[in-house]
């Protein structure tokens, strides 16, 4: 394992080597950008120059940018560059500008000072707390909070006494957070406590309480308990949130102790929190609560058992899961599915063996969803039940549990069942089982061989299974079906090939499109091929090559148009060139033009090819609606 330090050190060296070689280039570029800023270039050009100077600006850039801080339209651009530059000279420029700037420009600079945490600006910012402009006042308090030196903290707390509005209260919160980050937790706690006892807006006092509990760490328990025992629901809720951030046995014990003291809605929230905390000591309380009068409490307890329940809870949960209270039963079923551990599986298998009619279908379902291998013989037995719901549940569960030795039984079942609904359920189970088998190719061959003697109408079941299982053998078998003399088989195979989920189907589809002359199967194969071009993750050169082949192979303009439209989804010089190759084709001219313009609009770089293509389309007058879009592209390209 590489240490962080070693990786950082090694990369720093490499980066520095590269960087040194770029310094001269960057200096030259910065000089050019300075010239732009001093010229009569457009506001946009100057704005882009500032963005670049944010990355490569040098100390020579600072006075040039400083002059723009008071510019009507470039103040933000100047700050965009300056704020990113680490030089102390930038701080001096910002501080100096506090004396001259007004309104939003002043607010902008104050915000930048705050982000840069310039402690030397604190005195001036404190003066600005008295500004008659409320935006300036709020910005100053926010900046002081970011600075958070003692002078700033005192000023903010002083202001809170006289004006506990949102801005100053927010500053207090930020201030305390900064104090915590600089190892001054005692001072931070003082700030939080002052704030939560102030006249600040309620939600900020709630936030202060949240942080005051957490800042105290293990000593915060009494404050936490105080909120849990109080009447205020918001403080109760925020205490539960804080409890999750301070997980320890004392916190869990404090929450557990509260359960019996609280009303049902609060009980449910306490139990939920105990589940989230995985408080094993609360297990007896949760078990009791499963039988509570309040449905909310019952559901919270059942969900809590999902985190900490054991095999001892299976019987209780099964009873609830088969009760008449649907909401509670649903929660219990979910907990039974999610509870982890081999002992839970054993308990469920034992219950299944009992064949209790009320629980039978649920236990079958659990055996499947939990994939309890030992239940397979019981599931095969259940699959012979006369009760349809039991039969279906068992077949589904077998799809999740059987191993390869039992696969043939499921194949036989698919071939034997008469009802279309049961066949669909069984086929889905067989598919699920086949997908899981380690030897995919062997499994496919085995299943396909069993289907070879089946009636023609069963072929669609086989091909859909092939599609879902995938792999070389499945593809080969399905392609063979596309050449079958029987129309129904060809129909099923070509339909499935058009839905294939991996790109390796593409060459086969192209071959079919070229060999299945005329008719719907040729069109289906070509459209399947275009689907791969359009939807699958392919390298650009491969996608363009496939598009070119499709355009050559397609016999109808309908498919060629689909290919051209697919190009729009992957804008590149190569796709633009390919669309323009078809601009001379009268049947495709309009589509090619639209696609080329659409691609050009999305291309980030300027090229002679794009310009030439746009001018060619423009001069053709093929579609007046394209005129303004072409102009916009050419303007973007500087033409």
């Amino acid at each position, binding site marked *: 394992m590489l240490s962080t330090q070693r990786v*950082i050190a090694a990369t720093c060296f490499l980066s520095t080597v590269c960087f040194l070689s770029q310094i001269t280039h960057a200096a030259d570029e910065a000089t050019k950008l300075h010239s732009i800023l001093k010229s009569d270039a457009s506001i946009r050009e100057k704005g882009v120059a500032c963005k670049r100077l944010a990355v490569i600006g040098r100390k020579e850039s600072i006075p040039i940018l400083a002059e723009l801080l008071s510019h009507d339209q470039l103040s933000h651009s100047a700050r965009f560059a300056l*704020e990113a530059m680490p030089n102390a000279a930038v701080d001096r420029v910002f501080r100096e500008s506090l004396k001259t700037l007004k309104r939003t420009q002043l607010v902008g600079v104050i915000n930048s000072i*705050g982000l840069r945490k310039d402690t030397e600006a604190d005195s001036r910012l404190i003066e600005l707390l008295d500004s008659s402009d409320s935006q300036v006042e709020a910005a100053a308090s926010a900046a002081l909070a970011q600075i958070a030196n003692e002078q700033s903290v005192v000023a903010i707390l002083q202001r809170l006494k006289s004006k506990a509005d949102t801005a100053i209260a927010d500053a207090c919160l930020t201030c305390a957070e900064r104090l915590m980050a600089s190892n001054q937790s005692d001072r931070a706690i003082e700030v939080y406590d002052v704030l939560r006892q102030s006249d600040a807006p309620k939600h900020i006092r709630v936030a202060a309480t949240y942080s005051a509990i957490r800042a*105290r760490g293990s000593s915060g328990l009494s404050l936490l308990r105080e909120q849990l025992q109080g009447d205020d629901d918001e403080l109760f809720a925020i205490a539960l949130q804080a409890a999750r*951030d301070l997980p320890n046995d004392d916190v869990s014990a404090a929450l557990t102790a509260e359960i019996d003291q609280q009303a049902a809605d609060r009980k449910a929230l306490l139990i939920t929190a105990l589940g989230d905390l995985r408080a094993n000591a609360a297990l007896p309380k949760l078990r009791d609560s499963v039988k509570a009068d309040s449905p909310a409490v019952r559901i919270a307890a059942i969900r809590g058992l999902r985190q900490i329940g054991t095999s001892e809870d299976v019987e209780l949960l099964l009873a609830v899961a088969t009760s008449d209270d649907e*909401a509670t039963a649903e929660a219990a079923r979910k907990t039974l599915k999610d509870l982890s551990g081999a002992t839970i599986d054993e308990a469920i298998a034992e219950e299944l063996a009992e064949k209790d009619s009320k629980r039978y279908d649920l236990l079958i379902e659990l055996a499947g969803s939990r994939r309890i291998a030992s239940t397979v013989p019981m599931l095969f037995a259940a699959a012979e039940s006369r009760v349809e719901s039991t039969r279906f549940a068992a077949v589904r569960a077998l799809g999740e549990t059987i191993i390869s030795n039992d696969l043939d039984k499921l194949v036989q079942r698919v071939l034997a069942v008469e009802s279309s609904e049961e066949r669909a359920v069984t086929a889905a189970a067989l598919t699920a089982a086949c997908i899981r088998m380690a030897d995919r190719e062997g499994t496919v061959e085995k299943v396909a061989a069993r289907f070879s003697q089946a009636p023609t109408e069963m072929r669609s079941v086989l091909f859909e299974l092939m599609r879902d299982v995938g792999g070389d053998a499945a593809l080969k078998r399905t392609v063979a079906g596309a050449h079958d003399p029987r129309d129904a088989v060809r129909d099923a195979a070509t339909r499935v090939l058009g839905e294939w989920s991996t790109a390796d189907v593409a060459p086969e589809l192209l071959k079919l499109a070229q060999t299945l002359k005329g008719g719907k199967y040729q069109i289906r194969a070509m459209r399947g091929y275009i689907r791969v071009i359009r939807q*699958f*993750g392919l390298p650009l050169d491969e996608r363009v090559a496939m598009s070119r082949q499709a355009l050559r192979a397609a016999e109808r303009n309908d498919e060629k148009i689909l290919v051209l439209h697919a190009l729009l989804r992957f804008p590149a010089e190569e796709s633009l060139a390919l669309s323009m190759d078809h601009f001379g084709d009268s049947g495709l001219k309009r589509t090619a033009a639209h696609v080329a313009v659409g691609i050009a609009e999305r291309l980030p770089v300027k090229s002679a090819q794009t310009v030439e293509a746009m001018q060619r389309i423009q001069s053709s007058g093929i579609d007046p609606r394209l005129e303004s879009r072409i102009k916009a592209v050419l303007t973007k390209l500087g033409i």
Partner: protein
Amino acid sequence: MSNNQSAHSRRRFLKSAVAASAVFATPHIIPSSALGKDGAVAPSERIVMGAIGVGGRGSYDLGIFLQRPEVQFVGICDTQADRRNKAKKTVDEKYASQDCKTYSDMFEILARDDVDAMLIATGDRWHTLASIIAAKAGKDIYCEKPLSLTIAESRALADAIERYGRVYQAGTQRRNIRNFMLAIELAQSGKLGKLHTVHANTLAPATTHDCLPAEPEPVKDVVDWDRWLGPTPWRPYNSLYVQGRWRGYFDFHGGGILEWGSHTIDLCQWANSADDTTPVHFEPRGNSVVARYANGVKLVMRDTGWLGMGTCSVRFEGDEGFVETGDSGKMQLGPGKLRQEHRVFTDVGTDPTSHIREFLRCVKSRGVTAANANVAAQSHVAAHAAYVAWQLGRPLAFDPVKEEFPGDEEANRMRSRAWREPWRV
């Protein structure tokens, strides 16, 4: 003192094991005590919500929230009149009333004391700021991904959520979609052997500083363009932006690594049990970036070479096997003996219903969501760091604790972007 400190700084990371083992989750049932006599949820059990940003994705999310009986939407905020009016109609039709209020200014809806939680589905540029403003107003938040445009925004957001003790769920719903959860479980449980490489499906990273041509700006009541731009640099109005064509522009978008990576890098972090850290080294290779964690596991962020499992694919490789899955819900497992772990799920895809349900449950219980702000912020920091390396075109070391690139000033300057005044964190 030190105990206090470590307790306080215990960030609310994921209950990873819980979430991963909850693969077979079934729908949440509302306690019958919460239901009134007519089957409606009792007022005390209701979660009152508002939405900020109701374009395509926001409307989709809104529709899913509206299906939840415990939720009541009371306000819609959008900078575009047509969008907010359309969403109001949806809400009013649902409740057979005219009570849903519309707002163009999010501060007005956030000032409502009766609102508990917000759905935020603006464009990416607003996600961090709107979430911070909502947290400061005391609201719980479900926010669409990506949650940030920079490393600094990611951290500022996570800090604000923690500071205000808010429940937050990033819209990275694959944390609650079962085929992905099973793949994570396989990686974490050792069934793949010792994990050595995780792969995240990303898109081409590039963004542009271009602008669309200026068009006349609509009146503020129709489109509040200045508010639409929010903290990003001012630029002239063009109707295409507000119609949703803002992706690919540097000011508004974090690029293709972040676009899908906010999901897939997030899943890779989880698979590697790295929800509280990030890789320590990033190296760009074409449109891919290869990163490495301190525990030696490699993270490959790439846009090609996937097995066709659908969008947002991930692949986890150990020394005894691999699993690959994506939005189709299908999985590839290898070698053969691992195929027995395969499960066929019916409720796959990209539907965030389970994710939203978990959020609502946590709003009530004050529990920790799967995609809480700290977990999501770490994943986003990883994605942003990869994008910085890609932009600079050179390998970079990264310090996950300080969240900086040691000794590389250029890279460090790219960790943040100054917000337009008057906006601040």
